[in-house]
């Protein structure tokens, strides 16, 4: 990936980005003013929060959403908490 300070010879021809999905290494978690806290006991694993998250930050592993929330990328919009049918997610001030 091109780094600050790279010269034109270091940049791929045409300014192409050769690595797919490398935005993962860019952390947007710092935008957050409130963080979602998932209560794993209350969660019914309906996956609505997973589906609605604009930042792909509700992680699901083997069909289980109770895995984790990706705080590196979650921007704290609160959609997951608002839409949760059993109120298993709470927003907490950072």
């Amino acid at each position, binding site marked *: 990936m091109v780094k600050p300070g790279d010269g034109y010879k270091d940049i791929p021809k045409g300014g192409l980005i050769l690595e797919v999905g490398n935005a993962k290494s860019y952390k947007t978690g710092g935008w957050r003013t409130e963080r979602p806290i998932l209560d794993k006991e209350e969660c019914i694993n309906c996956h609505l929060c997973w589906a609605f998250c*604009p*930042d792909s930050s509700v992680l699901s592993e083997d069909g289980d959403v109770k895995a984790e929330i990706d705080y590196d990328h979650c921007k704290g919009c609160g959609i997951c908490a608002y839409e949760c049918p059993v109120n298993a997610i709470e927003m907490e001030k950072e």
Partner: protein
Amino acid sequence: MKLKEAAKKEERLTGGHRLCSGCGAGTVARLVMRASDNPAVVGCATGCLEVSTTIYPYTAWEDSFIHNAFENVGATISGVESAYRSLKKQGKMDEDFDFIAIGGDGGTYDIGFQSLSGAMERGHDMVYLCYDNGAYMNTGIQRSSATPKGANTTTSPAGEVIPGKQQYRKELTDIMAAHNIPYVAQASPFKPQDLMKKAKKAFEVDGPAFINVLAPCPRGWRSKAEEGIELTKIAADTCFWPLYEIEDGEWKLNYKPKNKKSITEWLEPQGRFKHLFQEENEALVEEIQEHVDQRWNTILNRCGEL
């Protein structure tokens, strides 16, 4: 497709993109890409999704991605699809690929309209996805032909002279249906399974497909970030944004609200419609309600529900 099952597939749009907090375009793009079973070539018309997901030297896409100007994503993806078909015919390539062009309402309803119309008419095997947030949000909320009547934008400012946008929005889904392509659908992210099902049909159909999806924009709608998905539900319940599909000319309604809500429930939570609740604009709200009712009846009629 069950959400649990869908979640087992790999993510095609990663986190770390720089769409605003609570942006609906991210949700819509993620869900639609989930429905693709092949590696894809994605093209975005200029717009929020384009600039925010691919800020150099980063890309949030796990597929090939092509930048486009505002007006030509339909042309670009149709060209890529043609090249692919040719290579396949020559035996130089045998993998299967999906082709998808994505535009916001500005890049689809207005500026990219001719290239979209051309690509659909030529019959390319591609999907066109429009995420409609009802204005040019990326450049600072200018009105587009998808902006609802009465909405306050920077180029249709509500004030003493006019009460927001003066025209009704263009019904692009109808226009695409009039292209007689195999698949046209209108969807909404509050029904993620319905959206993914439609996207799957769009990818699988042999020929062009068009999906129009309502995408909440907290900045432009002047609404709360966490209420975005709820607003898309209200849009369907008030019949402002009906969910339907047209398969080979056959219209089908996908969502009928149990109790059709008054349009004020859609207008009220959004700051862009705030001025409509002043006394002098009462008649305008009634007029908007009448327009929505008429439109809803037309759709019910076409879908054979009346």
